[in-house]
């Protein structure tokens, strides 16, 4: 029987380029492959993705498989599953990494069950055990209250990786690698879940995921009006507004700005949390921020355990004065 070897990364694209998460996976995959003295392989799937293969090589891949088909233009579970099942059986990777993204969350478990192998979702650290050579999969569990180390003894060893948890390599266009087209027959009759329509909300201003400053509000804001004040501050600081889950659930703000375990992951320089208690599921989305500032009326609030700076008080009184002073400082 052939041996399971090499590290395979499931690549994603964004706006016709290699997605940030894929560069992160390649950075991590490179390290694992080097440790195993094996190769790093990337697979790119879509309607036209061959042009991106070079970016994957520049970001660390030794070999890139390209699967192109008009039916693969948009992610659809059944079609991508057919491709990945065939690819894994052909490539036989020791390790298979996907991003903890909208696609990864849907595709990885399905694929793991089809391949009859184990899978750890949302890993934040991966390493090779020096004695067993097994992949150690470290992931937050219990909403972020705890961490667990898992191993799997079936192959491929599969993991999805949290966004922004790994560091990409500096892209090196002089790196050499091989690009291999892979043909997979896709039977349209086997696509049982069809995407009829994709509705995207227009983002005005800076994207939350990219913002260097995030002003986030929680249940303590009390309603949609309060978020106007957060918006004013965010604009002043050239940042974006985010929220914990309750303001989204209550429709004070769109669902798309939820930060946390089941929302967006942000890693800004400055994260200002207003009226947020700091539940572990929320912290999961902002713990990568360089500096957390918290305004909360409860001195015992968990957010202060995460914060570098804090003010205990009613935001309705603290925030206007803070915003005024910021305005003054930025003008002067």
């Amino acid at each position, binding site marked *: 029987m052939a041996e399971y070897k090499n590290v395979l990364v499931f690549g994603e694209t964004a706006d016709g380029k290699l997605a940030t998460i894929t560069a992160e996976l390649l950075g991590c995959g490179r390290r694992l492959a080097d440790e195993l003295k094996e190769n790093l392989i990337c697979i790119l799937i879509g309607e036209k993705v061959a042009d991106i293969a070079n970016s994957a090589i520049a970001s660390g891949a030794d070999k890139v498989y390209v699967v192109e088909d008009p039916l693969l233009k948009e992610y659809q579970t059944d079609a991508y599953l057919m491709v990945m099942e065939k690819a894994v059986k052909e490539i036989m990777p020791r390790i298979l990494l996907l991003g903890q993204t909208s696609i990864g969350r849907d595709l990885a478990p399905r694929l793991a069950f089809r391949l009859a*192998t184990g899978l750890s979702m949302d890993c934040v650290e991966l390493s090779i055990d020096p004695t067993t050579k097994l992949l150690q999969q470290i992931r937050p569990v219990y909403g972020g209250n*705890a961490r667990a180390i898992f191993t799997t*003894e079936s192959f491929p060893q599969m993991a999805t990786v949290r966004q922004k948890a790994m560091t990409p390599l500096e892209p090196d266009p002089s790196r050499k690698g091989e690009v291999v087209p892979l043909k997979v027959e896709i039977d349209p009759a086997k696509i049982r*879940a069809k*995407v009829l329509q994709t*509705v995207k909300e227009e983002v005005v201003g800076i994207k939350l995921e990219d913002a260097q400053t995030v002003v986030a509000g929680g249940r303590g804001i009390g309603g949609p009006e309060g978020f106007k004040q957060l918006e004013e501050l965010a604009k002043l600081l050239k940042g974006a507004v985010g929220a914990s889950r309750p303001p989204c659930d209550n429709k004070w703000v769109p669902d798309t700005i939820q930060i946390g375990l*089941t929302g967006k992951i942000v890693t800004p320089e400055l994260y200002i949390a207003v009226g947020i208690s700091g539940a572990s599921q929320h912290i999961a989305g902002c713990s990568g921020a360089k500096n957390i500032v918290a305004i909360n009326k409860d001195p015992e609030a968990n957010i202060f355990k995460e914060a570098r700076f804090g003010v205990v008080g009613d935001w309705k009184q603290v925030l206007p004065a803070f915003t005024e002073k910021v305005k003054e400082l930025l003008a002067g």
Partner: protein
Amino acid sequence: MPNMVVCCKQVIDPEAPPASFKIDPATNKVVPPPGVPPVISPFDEQAVEAALRIKDKHGGKITVISLGNNLLRDVVKKPLSMGADELILLEDPAFEDSDSWSTAYALAMAIKKIGQYDLIFCGRQAADWDAGQVGCGIAEILGIPCVTIAKSVEFMDGKAKVERVIPDGYQVIEVALPAVITVSNELGEARYATLKGIMAAAKKQPIVWKPADIGVSPSEVGTAGRRTKLVKLFQPVKEGKCEFVEADSPAEAGAKLALRLREAKLI
């Protein structure tokens, strides 16, 4: 009229104060916080809600399945008091310490035994292990499609129209039935149990199935059926050094905070 199955997991209350969270390093297990009763994992409650909304409109039957050992009747009966019709418990020591693999396998085998199903609902992930694999796993084992992270589900003859949450909006997906749907919080709050519902639930006896009842051997479920090995469970250490900005009034503290952030070159 659709036959619906909802998978509901009993978990330690995920909203219990973080300070009450403890791990027993000897067993690699979480110590349930004293005085905080377990709950149905919140996304699973919303999965029940998704099924109830379809029942409100089209009728049909909702069967709830919970898997574990020593399940608290008051907790696992909650979906009945919300309006579900039947409760099946996969309850046996052999089901303990399941991972995503062994959970999905046992649930899929139980659903096979139920036999008639159009829609199977799960939460998008359980609030304890946060894996988000079981719904997809059930679908794969049963050989049916799955739509994950749904915020709305509309039942039509032989198919369903599902809105799936994506980072900047949503997708409308049409799926052939039977299918598994995993539900996210964007669906909206689960309804409260009514008094009538609570009384009806009190009278209903759950059906208990053992591994043999669903045609599986104890070696295929629980710990024995795992595909992932838990090497260690631990609490990350936090330094937690917050500098509190204090002043005579909240407004002054706000202004002082701005100055402090300027000093730290953060604005």
